[in-house]
């Protein structure tokens, strides 16, 4: 496909290979390390679940019991428990919640652990494969009813049961994707809450039970409307791999999962995040879960016109990291956003150029396009007009995933009617101007072509600079989003461990095999 924007394929290629060079040393670090959360995710995939009377989840109990042994991989101790007590995970979970200390059990022969490990991996794998084929079938059946871009809305009442009402209503109105926003600051919890929850701030706790409740509700509405309603939650944070694991088990369809979001926007330690994102993306890749990256956050924090290139650079880095996790392009919901100051003259042209550029650089990725938020005000009417132009560009540039703007963005998390109005707006616009771009051409060396070329050029220089410094240092030196994060600062560093030579993780092994991930030098 020829570039409508006159972008040079060589420059794009160069950018991509610099991104790979940037990622390489980080990947090297990742492969030599594990984290609390990677281990807890592994436990969850093998069957660990439940909380104790103090609300501490079993995976956390196990990891703290084994703190000095984590470097060997905690899976073997959990499996050893199953073998020693001759029980299934459910029972073992109850015992651990009741006070059983796994370190007090003698270890059986590694051979048996291996065997049992394979069995549990098989259970996990079967479950996820069933989800995959179920989803695939539903999506194929509904493909005519759900053309691109898919309409994505959030629910965020804080109460999973209210969320269900809101989500079902939205799905009936035409939403294809429902994201249950998490309660504020859940990303900073170093454990995953348990059970159904009804009290959150600005969102609802991500718990496995909440996933199940919403999954069931959306499947119902999907049946009713003859469509497949995708469910999204947030992996990012200190529990990134665990939440990915829960998503894989409960058939979520998308996961917020960025390689650097936690570092920059949640002050989570960079080593922790890099290791976590890799393992969580392996799970997503295997479970056929589309990730959503968080480039929009650069633009809400910095100026969207000035810093447009940081988005493109981050997309390329995210892509490179995702490749390392065995992720195919079709699962890469790379993020970007319509966040320029609405008062910029010809802002629409710059946004259009930017969106089209993303489309051309990542032709296979189902780009996730985020609506105006930063410049939304209490003027809900103005906001509605901005969303109209946003929807226009989304359709004109064939974005894959359209996160709908809410007219009340600056006021409150969405009311039921806000979502309805957003969906109606998108449907109106997209039907009305659907074939516009194929009916027009960009003027050679016009405003839009020049803008895209300029941003691509800036992206290349920026990536080069990062590569020279190295990613760790670049983050420390404020190169992203004007935020400096010291290498050993932030939350969660204490949960990072160098793997012992004998480190064993049956899930990781299995996924590496399934996803064809090449291990680099150790």
């Amino acid at each position, binding site marked *: 496909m020829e570039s409508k924007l006159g972008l040079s394929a060589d420059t794009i290629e160069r950018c991509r290979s610099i991104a790979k060079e940037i990622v390489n040393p980080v990947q090297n670090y990742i492969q030599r390390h594990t984290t609390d959360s990677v281990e807890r995710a592994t436990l969850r995939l093998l069957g660990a679940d439940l909380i104790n009377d103090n609300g501490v989840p079993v995976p956390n109990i196990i990891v703290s019991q084994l703190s000095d042994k984590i470097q060997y991989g905690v899976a073997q101790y959990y499996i050893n428990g199953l073998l020693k007590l001759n029980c299934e995970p459910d029972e073992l979970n109850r015992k651990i919640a009741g006070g059983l200390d796994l370190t007090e059990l003698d270890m059986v022969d590694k051979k048996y652990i291996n065997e049992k490990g394979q069995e549990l991996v098989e259970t996990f794998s079967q479950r996820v494969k069933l989800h995959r084929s179920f989803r695939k079938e539903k999506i194929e059946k509904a493909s005519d009813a759900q053309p691109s871009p898919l309409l994505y809305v959030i629910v965020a009442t804080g109460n999973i049961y209210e969320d269900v009402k809101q989500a079902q209503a939205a799905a009936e109105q035409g939403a294809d994707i429902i994201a249950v926003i998490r309660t504020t600051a859940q990303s900073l919890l170093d454990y995953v809450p348990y059970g159904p929850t009804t009290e959150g701030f600005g969102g609802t706790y991500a718990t496995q039970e909440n996933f199940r409740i919403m999954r069931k509700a959306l499947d119902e509405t999907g049946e009713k409307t003859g469509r497949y309603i995708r469910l999204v939650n947030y992996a990012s944070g200190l529990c990134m791999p665990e939440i990915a694991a829960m998503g894989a088990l409960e058939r979520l369809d998308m996961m917020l999962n960025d390689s650097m979001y936690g570092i920059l926007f949640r002050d989570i330690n960079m080593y922790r995040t890099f290791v976590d994102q890799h393992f969580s993306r392996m799970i997503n890749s295997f479970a056929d879960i589309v990730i959503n990256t968080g480039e929009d956050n650069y633009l809400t924090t910095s100026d969207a016109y000035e810093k447009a290139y940081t988005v493109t650079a981050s997309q390329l880095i995210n892509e490179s990291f995702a490749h390392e996790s065995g992720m195919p392009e079709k699962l890469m919901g790379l993020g970007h956003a319509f966040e320029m100051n609405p008062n910029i003259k010809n802002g629409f042209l710059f946004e259009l150029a930017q969106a089209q550029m993303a489309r051309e650089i990542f032709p296979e990725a189902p780009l996730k396009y985020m609506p105006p938020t930063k410049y939304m005000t209490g003027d809900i009417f103005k906001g509605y007009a901005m969303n109209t132009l946003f929807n226009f560009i989304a359709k004109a540039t064939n974005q894959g995933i359209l996160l709908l703007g809410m007219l009340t963005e600056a*006021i409150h998390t969405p009311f039921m009617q806000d979502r309805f109005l957003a969906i109606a707006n998108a449907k109106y616009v997209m039907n009305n101007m659907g074939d516009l771009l194929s009916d027009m051409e960009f003027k050679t060396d016009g405003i839009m072509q020049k803008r895209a070329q300029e941003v691509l050029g800036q992206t290349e220089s920026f990536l080069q600079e990062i590569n020279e410094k190295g990613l760790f240092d670049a983050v420390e030196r404020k190169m992203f989003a004007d935020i400096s994060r010291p290498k050993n600062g932030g939350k969660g560093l204490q949960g990072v461990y160098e793997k012992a030579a004998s480190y064993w993780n049956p899930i990781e092994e299995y996924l590496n095999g399934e996803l064809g991930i090449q291990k680099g030098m150790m």
Partner: protein
Amino acid sequence: MMIKAYGDTLNDGAVQLSFTLPVASGPKADEAARIYTGKLGFEECEVVHSNPLSDDFTFFVVYGKSATSLDYSKVVVEEVETSMDFYEVNQFIKEKLKRKIVVVGACTGSDAHTVGIDAIMNMKGYDQHYGLERYPEIEAYNLGAQVKNEDLIEYAKKVKADVILISQIVTQKEVHIHNMTNFIELMEAEELRDNIVVCAGGPRVSNKLAMEIGFDAGFGRGSYPEHVASYVVEKLFEKQRK
């Protein structure tokens, strides 16, 4: 069953408002808007936006929550029965009324909007719904717009109308109500009211309003020809049996 407005939590009572106050923009105006919304009976009023319209006027967007609730089980609407489609209506006339019926329609008074009455009457119909002129069992006369009530009644007498349909679109200063009332008065003066089924329609005409004024029924936005057709034939049948 008691209901309240719903934002994102049952019974939160959340309502969006917008309005203009005749005051200059500024913190005092914002505070006035908040208090005003409070006086309207809302709690937790938030003035989320304000904008000067001129030196003397300011526009506000406000969200508030109201404790007011409504017993939904007590709400009654006299819905117009609109059960039959084109074919059924014609069938009904043939079988039950046993003769063609005569319908005269017009947009009356100074009102010049023909599109509404045309939607109901014209051959080609509206939104894929045939108009009354296409009904083989109906003899339909559409007199167009700006027809005087007197002329309409005169015409109805001439063609021996069973049904008169009136369209009223302009409502400013309640001109539609004056016009509709005047029509009913004339009909009564001529002692025709009881013999002819009279219906009114228009985007601001509800069944309730029309009945209060003395019409048999009223038809609001989104009406189709078969709605009024099925209503009037049932009504005529009912009258016939008395």
